[in-house]
């Protein structure tokens, strides 16, 4: 039976204290925190991070990659291809975007559960709104990825028992492309639509699974209409409704059912029944049952660990990162757009962080080189050296307050990789005064900058979050 082979949730490092909003604006905000994508993250880079975590625990390789977000880094151009490149998937693996709507994330997941072959579903979102609005405070940023397949592809940790969909056209939430905020119709109206749709899909899914509501151990209930979500959750008749992570992370929209599901799977026992209910322009329901294989499964980096490991971002910086306010940049030229042809030639390096290693000397070259810095290596006698998952240590570092950056100052370190190799590299998710020689770091896929509408993706190093970057 088809189901989930692996999964990974990604919560960015930064948190906005919701009370900081009213402290500045006089209103808005609330209690708790929300997760905040850094200035160098977008839905594509967060998708890469979640997908890396999902692929880390398993041998299985996806034959398709589907990416869903309501905040695509590009329109027109497929965003999934950058994720595909960062994961170093074979060119025969298709990469598609499920774009635009918050519902597309759960839709891609449900479609993958009905599809053929191992399919990697990546969902990500950056949620916000105008300052002081509810969406600004209750939204969150993050990503979740699932590798879907059958036992032929790898041990299935949660199999699909049944699913259902209910669809209706009504305008409750909407956003014009490029707009910074989402509109919402008078809340009472949406509630009247979602209630019956949820009841219909819930009943159909239970029937397809051949179980009763009381058999469901936990229900993950999310959606874009918070009142309706609460009401529906209360009416399902399940043993427990999952913590929706709203106190620390917030509602991460397209990726929210995935992130909450990942968190539940990380805490679940084999043989448990988990329902996923998503309210967005209708209702999607998935009913899953965890298998014995779950006991053998070790997450890439548990969602709970990421939630526990965060640092505050000031409201002023948050507004700047979300382009609600602009700050004066250093009086230095802005970076120029990367050349598409040069980037394509360097694809393994730029997206996959693959260096080269001299076959005789074993010397690592970052970026990859044809000619070695060691005499014993012949011309072109180099093997590819994938380094994205190799840990490193800070040898020395500096703070650059002169160079152009969207979020100065630039923190820069010379890092030595475990097993050899060195790179001078920018650090991220770090406080300038907290960097230390000897500090452990790991590589993370980021958007360095955007120029002329082209996103320049490459890798940075960040203080090690996962214990799994090899020593």
């Amino acid at each position, binding site marked *: 039976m088809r189901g989930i082979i692996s999964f990974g949730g990604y919560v960015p490092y930064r948190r906005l204290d919701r009370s900081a909003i009213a402290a500045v604006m006089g209103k808005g905000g609330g209690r708790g925190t929300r997760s905040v994508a850094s200035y160098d993250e977008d839905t594509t880079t967060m998708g890469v991070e979640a997908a890396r975590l999902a692929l880390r625990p398993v041998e299985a390789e996806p034959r398709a990659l589907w990416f869903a977000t309501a905040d695509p880094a590009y329109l027109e151009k497929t965003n999934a291809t950058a994720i595909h490149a960062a994961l170093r998937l074979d060119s025969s693996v298709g990469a598609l975007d499920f774009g635009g709507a918050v519902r597309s994330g759960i839709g891609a997941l449900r479609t993958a559960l009905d599809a053929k072959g191992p399919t990697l579903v990546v969902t990500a979102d950056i949620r916000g709104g105008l300052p002081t609005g509810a969406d600004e405070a209750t939204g969150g940023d993050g990503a979740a990825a699932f590798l879907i397949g059958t036992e032929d592809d790898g041990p299935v940790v949660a199999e699909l028992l049944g699913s259902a969909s209910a669809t209706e056209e009504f305008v409750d939430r909407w956003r014009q492309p490029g707009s910074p905020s989402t509109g919402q119709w008078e809340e009472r109206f949406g509630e009247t639509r979602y209630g019956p749709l949820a009841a219909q899909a819930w009943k159909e899914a239970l029937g397809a699974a051949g179980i009763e509501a009381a058999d469901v151990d936990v229900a993950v209930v999310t959606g874009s209409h918070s009142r309706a979500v609460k009401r529906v959750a209360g009416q399902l008749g399940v043993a427990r409704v999952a913590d929706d992570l709203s106190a620390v992370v917030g509602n991460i929209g397209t990726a929210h059912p995935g992130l909450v599901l990942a968190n539940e799977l990380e805490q679940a026992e084999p043989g448990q029944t988990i329902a996923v209910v998503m309210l967005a322009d209708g209702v999607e329901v998935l009913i899953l049952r965890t298998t014995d294989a779950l006991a053998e499964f070790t997450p890439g980096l548990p969602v709970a660990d990421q939630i526990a490991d965060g640092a505050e971002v000031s409201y002023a910086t948050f507004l700047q990162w979300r382009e609600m306010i602009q700050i004066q940049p*250093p*009086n*230095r*030229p802005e*970076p*120029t*757009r*990367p*050349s598409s042809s*040069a*980037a394509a*030639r*360097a694809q393994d*390096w*730029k997206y996959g962080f693959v260096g080269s290693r001299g076959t005789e000397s074993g*010397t*690592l*070259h*970052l*970026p990859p080189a044809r000619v070695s*810095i060691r005499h014993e290596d012949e011309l072109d006698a180099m093997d590819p050296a994938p380094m994205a998952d190799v840990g490193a240590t800070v*040898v*020395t*570092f*500096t*703070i*650059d*307050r*002169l*160079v*152009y*950056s969207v979020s100065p100052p*630039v923190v*820069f370190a*010379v890092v*030595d990789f475990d097993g*050899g*190799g*060195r*790179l*001078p*590299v*920018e650090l991220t998710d770090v406080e300038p005064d907290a960097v230390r*020689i000897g500090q452990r770091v790991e590589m993370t896929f980021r958007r*360095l*900058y955007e120029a002329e509408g082209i996103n*320049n*993706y*490459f890798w940075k190093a960040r203080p090690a979050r996962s214990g799994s970057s090899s020593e």
Partner: protein
Amino acid sequence: MASHGIKDQVAIIGMGCTQFREHWDKGVDDLLIDSATAAFDSAGVAKDDVDAFWLGTASSGMSGLTLSQPLKLEGKPVTRVENFCATGSEALRQASYAVASGAYDMAMAIGVEKIKDSGYQGLNAAPAPHDGTKRNLTAAAMYSLVLPAYAARYGVDEDELRMVVAKIAEKNHRNGALNPLAQFRREMPAEKICEMAAVAGRLSVFDCSGVADGSAAAIVVRAEDAHQYCDDPLYIKALSFVSGTGGGLIDPDYDYTTFPECEMAGADAYRQAGIEDPRSALAMAEVHDCFTPTEMVLMEDLGFCERGTAWKEVLAGTFERTGDMPINTDGGLKAFGHPVGASGLRMHYECWLQLRNKAGEDRQIDLSTRNLGLVHNLGGYPGEMVSFVSILGPELG
């Protein structure tokens, strides 16, 4: 295969140098005309007497036309050269080889940079099309990596080392204050520099070279012809150049306390000139003090003192104009200013004045026991740089 050098085959017979400063009222053409004219006058020749030209500019113009048009050179070859911040020296190196080969009787090396028309602070070269993976870091930040590395390697307190490099800036400002062509003519106490806000690592703006416009030029002929034009020519004893592998950036053995390219270029120059102990042979050196830690490390790389001791020698005053080993007597990049393509020739201009006893009473160094000078000019960053070294002297042999 060997670097043979052209010791005593070529002589400088005239030089010119504009003031280095923010020349809001002068363009590239004006600066080139001014330094070229000063060099022609210095050598007592006319522009038509010069057979070939090498123009060094990092980013103020493309091709030989940048020089031949403003000077209205007719039927003459002009080669534009670029080698990062060592561009000016590279122009001199090429002109010298051209004369030594016998291809031309007289050649000019001229360097220029018009920095201040960009509208930005600092040096900003437009990058070639790229894949977007090159590091985003100022040169100041790259060189700031030297301080903690040096402190750790030699067990020097970081605060003390910060004061040491500020003393280098203080010295170069003191030298610049005496120099009418220098950009900064105000003394700057090290204590004040230490109090300034850090812009890159622990470096402040006053640890960085002055950003200036300017031009400098030299005219060279074969040594045997020099006295036709000049009573006191300056002979070229060595010209060396090393362009690095960039290995320092990726080699975990590199520790940011030395610039191997500079050490290699220095060793080659000493071989060419027949110098065994540079400290006792050289009367002075102009070195590439793009940032204050650079000058400190160069003292060791060029063999002026033992490894790990430059910081003590700085505090002892060894490198003062009146010290045992005068360094950057004209103020250096720090106080004279750094118009990229002109700087290498500006360094030679200081040798041209000092080694011929023409620097003026208030600035002239002591030549009673030694009369050789060294120019060191680099481009790039720790781990990936080009380095030039020349040695010059007023006597043959």
